[in-house]
């Protein structure tokens, strides 16, 4: 099982490879997108994308010297107005020597393959694959790997999909890092797509958006590594809290639960000041399922975290590498893996996983 890790700037490539990453993925937010203030992929942060294809070429060259493949995220939905920009990106990335693309919009595959016939195409978890018919469709369209949706499948369902994916001659990729996991289907969520921004007026957004836009514009003047580290630090510290305030799904709300009856709705319970973010997202850990993923023959373990600081990504990659190695010791039982896993978790994070919610608890064999 290989590990795929994200990188946000060229400086991160070597450390991630040394930590154990055998594949890398990234986004590129080039000038022709920045001019229009539109992002080229689903990660809408200036510091979680390379600035241009010159940097991508450098990263690919460094990775190739270590026999590590680089994939580029083209995982947004492109409209008629942005399609030409997407095509330009695919051609430039293919010329830069990337191994493939992580895509969401399967209706564009035919054209994408024409532009980059030598590249592989991976289905992003943002277009969630839940059944065998979708797997078959993906194979028919030319997708070679499917990333299983994060958090929306039971272990039993995942196993069925992995078996089906392999039977179709494709690779299966599963997330293998611990982090915040939203309970909603990310690929269907409209909160983060901002499509309904006009329906969620927020004085927090009005207060902080100008500053965030200014930071984004100033960042383009900074050298790449500094720009990336600045953004990552801002996100992970105070500004991370501020940014939470401007997302509609992270505001406070009240909840009036009602029972429906023929005579009308009857109030049942009222909860006030409930934070939607805490309702949706919690620190869930999926690491104890790594041995199960290995048993299934899952091809790639995906470490998420585009935009996270490098230290966190390195820690996640090393921990994933250690867990996979532990799982691959054929003599180990599930209980021994869990014990070893908890020890490795403590070494990596400095805390026990007792306070975490075990995502696959109760589903293991």
């Amino acid at each position, binding site marked *: 099982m290989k590990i795929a890790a994200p990188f946000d700037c060229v400086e991160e490539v070597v450390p991630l490879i040394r930590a154990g990453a055998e594949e890398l993925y990234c986004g590129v937010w080039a000038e022709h997108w920045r001019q229009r*203030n539109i992002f080229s992929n689903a990660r809408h942060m200036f510091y979680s994308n390379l600035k241009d294809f010159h940097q991508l070429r450098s990263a690919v060259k460094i990775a190739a010297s270590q026999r590590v493949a680089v994939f580029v995220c083209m995982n947004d939905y492109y409209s*008629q107005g942005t399609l030409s920009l997407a095509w330009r990106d695919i051609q430039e990335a293919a010329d830069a020597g990337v191994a493939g693309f992580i895509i969401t919009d399967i*209706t*564009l595959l035919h054209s994408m393959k024409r532009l980059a016939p030598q590249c592989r195409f991976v289905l992003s978890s943002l277009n969630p694959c839940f059944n065998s018919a979708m797997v078959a469709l993906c194979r028919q369209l030319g997708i070679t790997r499917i990333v299983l949706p994060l958090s929306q499948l039971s272990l039993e369902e995942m196993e069925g999909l992995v078996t089906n994916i392999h039977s179709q001659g494709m690779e299966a990729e599963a997330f293998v890092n611990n982090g915040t996991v939203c309970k909603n289907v990310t690929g269907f969520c*409209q*909160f983060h797509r901002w*499509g309904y921004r*006009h329906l*969620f007026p927020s004085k927090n957004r009005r207060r902080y958006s100008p500053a965030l836009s200014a930071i984004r514009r100033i960042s383009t003047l900074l050298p790449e590594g500094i720009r990336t580290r600045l953004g990552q630090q801002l996100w992970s510290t105070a500004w991370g809290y501020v940014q939470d305030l401007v997302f509609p799904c992270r505001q406070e709300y009240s909840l009036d639960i*009602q029972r429906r009856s023929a005579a009308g709705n009857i109030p049942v319970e009222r909860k006030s000041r409930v934070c939607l973010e805490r309702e949706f997202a919690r620190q869930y850990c999926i690491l104890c399922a790594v041995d199960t993923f290995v048993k299934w023959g899952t091809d790639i373990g995906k470490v998420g975290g585009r935009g996270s600081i490098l230290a966190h990504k390195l820690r996640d990659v090393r921990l994933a590498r250690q867990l996979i190695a532990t799982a691959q010791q054929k003599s180990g039982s599930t209980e021994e893996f869990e014990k070893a896993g908890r020890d490795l978790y403590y070494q990596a994070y400095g805390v026990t996983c007792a306070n975490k919610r075990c995502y696959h608890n109760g589903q293991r064999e």
Partner: protein
Amino acid sequence: MLEHFTGETAIFWDCEGDKVPAAGKRVYIGNEFCDKALPAREVLFAALRTCEERRGKATFVTPFMTEKGLRAAAALSGVINAMICCDEIVVNDWGFLSVIGEWAPQKKLIAGRLLVSRYFPGQDDEALSAGKSSQDAAARYLFPEEFLSFMGGYGVKAIEFNSWKHAQVASRQLQAHGIAANLYIPYAYVTTSRFCSCAHQFKSFPRSLDFICHKECGSIMANVGYDKSAAAMIIRGNTYFIYQHLAEQKRGVETIQRIIINDAGVDIGRGDEDKNSVK
């Protein structure tokens, strides 16, 4: 808005409730967001028979599906094929879209909101304020030609919109391609989950996909109020919906072929008559 609309209207019908639709109406039966909420074979058959008796038309709405849901939908295709009044199927799953043409070849296929709403551009305010031409900004609401060709290749004849804004611009494009545009009002979906809020009594945790569904969504729902926003959201089943205020909309309705009145269950078993008051 409805007073300016001259196209077809349809209503969502809770066929397990006590009400029946008025004669001659088109009803939507099924669920867009939950494969557990697909009706049982007998229930669907009874509902379609009622529809047929009342000289109405039915559209069968299907959700995104796990393997289990796919099998359930396959089991229902026999009923759908047998009932002429059910002439359309709304598809919200790419995998299902690729197979339903073989399972129900005589039915008109409609691309549902889950397949389409992600084309609604984000950051539209920023793009417009960036000083680009209105044509440039409007193009961001339009579907790529590849998408329309792909849909046409699978026999999709209509596309359903979640957002009024999206429908207003993109429906003109669809008209030129001979594809109908349908719009859901007044509730747009915002987010959905396989962890059902209703089944978990609106408690956040623990989360489990192993819960037994008792179709609680038929009897409870929640209103979500924002202190900092006038947006009216509701939770029904596993999905958050938001109310779109469309009363003032007069322009742009002419290119929309159908409006589906989706009250998201705010009114129970929406229909026009009680089952017991058969005339």
